[in-house]
């Protein structure tokens, strides 16, 4: 029986790549003097969560949704309303926003899942347009184009966030929670079912996978995560208005996912980072910036359609030091290729 004393270093070594990335992300920012860069990292965090949530649908289940900004909007408005009108502390407003967005995910998924491919995509597009128009015209509830202002800053058990670094660590925590939770979901029965649906829905159904239920669950989860990102955005910028959640926003999310690559947890994050850094980096070009944005999108899709890191699933573990629970499949083991 391995004593835990020996197992712990093994755990560290096996997950060294992941842990070192997290260490760098946590340790470096305090030393960055220019808050602009920290702020860019915060936006990358928001869009990483959004792209990861879209990846659940497009990348894992293979459902093409082009109206995902709708759930982002629902999360933002729900969180603002919950904290301002019901006076909920931020943590509850965050959870509430995620739940409400998830509920709308359910409302959209339930009736439309029997539709195939392009028709489901068009329903998500329609939903995004409708939600945008409702946000813009429902004066009494959303204050329409005037938007909602003075959204309170996030507060965790009484500690109110103020400095940009605190916002950075909050979004870093949310991103890590998102990645950890998605990793856990994907590496067990739930994840296999979603991937099976993408690979061959008919075979999955015949093998006992309740495809409709799983697709609905995937939709609810994707909407939930987008709601979380929306809630953070609302309390971070403290002013939300409908024109931050238009159909173009959904296109940007789709572009980030396609650019970074889908079907794994690393591609979406890389995609979000790239498509926020590129416009920022080319800001001095002013109006020519958008030519770079459009051009990069087209070239990437033509040259490498699965995106930078798409098409395969990555494991950042050094298997040599793998301290995973004692491997029980010896019979297969001796055939396993080394490393």
């Amino acid at each position, binding site marked *: 029986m391995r004593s835990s004393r020996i197992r712990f270093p093994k755990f560290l070594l096996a997950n060294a790549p992941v842990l070192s990335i997290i260490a760098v992300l946590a340790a470096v920012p305090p030393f960055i003097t*220019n*808050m*602009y860069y920290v*702020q*860019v990292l915060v*936006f990358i965090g928001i869009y990483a969560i959004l792209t990861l949530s879209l990846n659940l649908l497009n990348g894992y289940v293979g459902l093409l949704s082009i109206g995902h900004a709708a759930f982002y909007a629902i999360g933002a408005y729900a969180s603002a309303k919950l904290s301002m009108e019901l006076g909920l502390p931020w943590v509850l407003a965050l959870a509430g926003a995620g739940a409400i967005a998830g509920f709308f995910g359910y409302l959209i998924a339930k009736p439309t899942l029997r539709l195939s491919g392009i028709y489901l995509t068009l329903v998500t597009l329609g939903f995004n347009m409708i939600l945008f*128009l409702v946000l*813009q*015209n429902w*004066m009494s509830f959303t204050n*329409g*184009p*005037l*938007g909602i*202002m*003075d959204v309170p800053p996030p507060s965790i058990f009484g500690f109110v966030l103020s400095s940009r670094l605190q916002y950075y660590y909050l979004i870093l925590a949310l991103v890590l929670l998102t990645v950890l939770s998605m990793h856990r979901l994907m590496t067990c029965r739930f994840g296999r079912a979603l991937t099976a649906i993408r690979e061959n829905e008919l075979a999955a159904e015949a093998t006992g996978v309740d495809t409709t239920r799983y697709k609905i669950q995937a939709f609810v989860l994707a909407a939930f995560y987008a709601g979380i990102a929306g809630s953070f955005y609302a309390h971070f*910028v*403290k*002013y*939300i*208005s409908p*024109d*931050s959640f238009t159909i173009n926003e959904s296109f940007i999310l789709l572009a980030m996912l396609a650019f970074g690559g889908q079907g794994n947890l690393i591609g979406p994050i890389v995609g979000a980072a790239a498509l926020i*850094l*590129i*416009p*920022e*980096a*080319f*800001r*001095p*070009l*002013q*109006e020519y*910036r*958008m030519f770079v944005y459009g051009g*990069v999108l087209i*070239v*990437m899709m033509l*040259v*490498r359609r699965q995106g*930078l890191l798409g098409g395969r699933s990555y494991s950042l573990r050094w298997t040599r030091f793998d301290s995973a629970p004692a491997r029980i499949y010896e019979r297969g083991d001796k055939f396993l290729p080394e490393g």
Partner: protein
Amino acid sequence: MIKKMAVTGMMVGLILAGGIAGLEPALAAGEVKIGLSAPLTGDWAEYGNDFKRAVSMVIDKVNKEGGINGKKLELVIADSRGDAKESVLIAEKFVADPAIIAQVGDFSSSSTMAAAPVYEQAKMVQISPTASHQDWTKKGEFMFRVVATQGYEGPYNARWAVNDLKKKKIATIYINNDWGVDANKYFVGEARRLGAEIVAEEAFTPGEKDFNAVISKLKRLEPDLVYMPTFYADFTAILNQAERARFKPTVLANSSLFSVKTLEMGGRAVEGTMIPVNYFGSDPRPAAQNFTKEYKALYGTDPNQFAALAYDAAGVLVAALKAVGTDSRARVREGLIGLKGYEGATGPISYAEGRDPAKLLVRIMIKNGQWVLYKP
């Protein structure tokens, strides 16, 4: 293999170019910069470019006259696409650059309001030529406005319509964005208080082109005045289509329409339109005349209301800098508040009683295809 190289080449190129472009330009000793955040692309690109032209004009003039206390001013222009996320990032970029001492912008209320907390925290003046959201200046101490708020222009127009023009049955058609909603709300509130009957309030989504349905509806209601807080493109479309439907109401609108485009695209359909303006091409006041001459000489077209407002935003900023010097951001705020007797292209501007300047409005109208002073 070629594909792989193409992708890596592209990525390396992007990062390198980005790195170089993103680097903080080496800070020349004593250099002073002013930031301009405006929508150079996207739906409001037209007005972003008005800002760019007017503000650069002011900065170039100041530099020609030897800058401020010997220091040249540099204008840093950033494209916000009218998007809240972009304007927050621009605000961070400006605030992080110690050389930038104050900021002009943004165009739409939503991007201006989203960026306000960043400027407030850095105690840097954010002066917006056109943001009209009523509560924007309450967001902090460093928010300054050049345009009169709709809380001021709305009731003014209502009094003009009900008391002076004696109109009883009024309909409104307004663009459904933050400016339009406020413009309609304050006008209708005051008009009702003055006893007028509001027969219809028709909002339309920005980008709308077909107004026949609204026109037919208003034709049936026969209002004796139509109040139209819109921009020139929608305004001329509505009136052209109204003319085709033989619907010729008395029209009252807002300062946003003051531009040669309104005349060009409206033709005879816009004859008789009345609007209050801060800035007016043939306004005899010297400040307005100089601005019109300089702008036309430099850019070859007549300036519109938005260019005038941006010109004044940069103008008051320069005046404040001349008064308090260019070493501390916070003092720029005092400079602005302490401004006395500043004559802008859009009229006298003073922030003594508050950062929403009370602007005097001049009544003009379109007569034989020209903007002229309004005579009852």
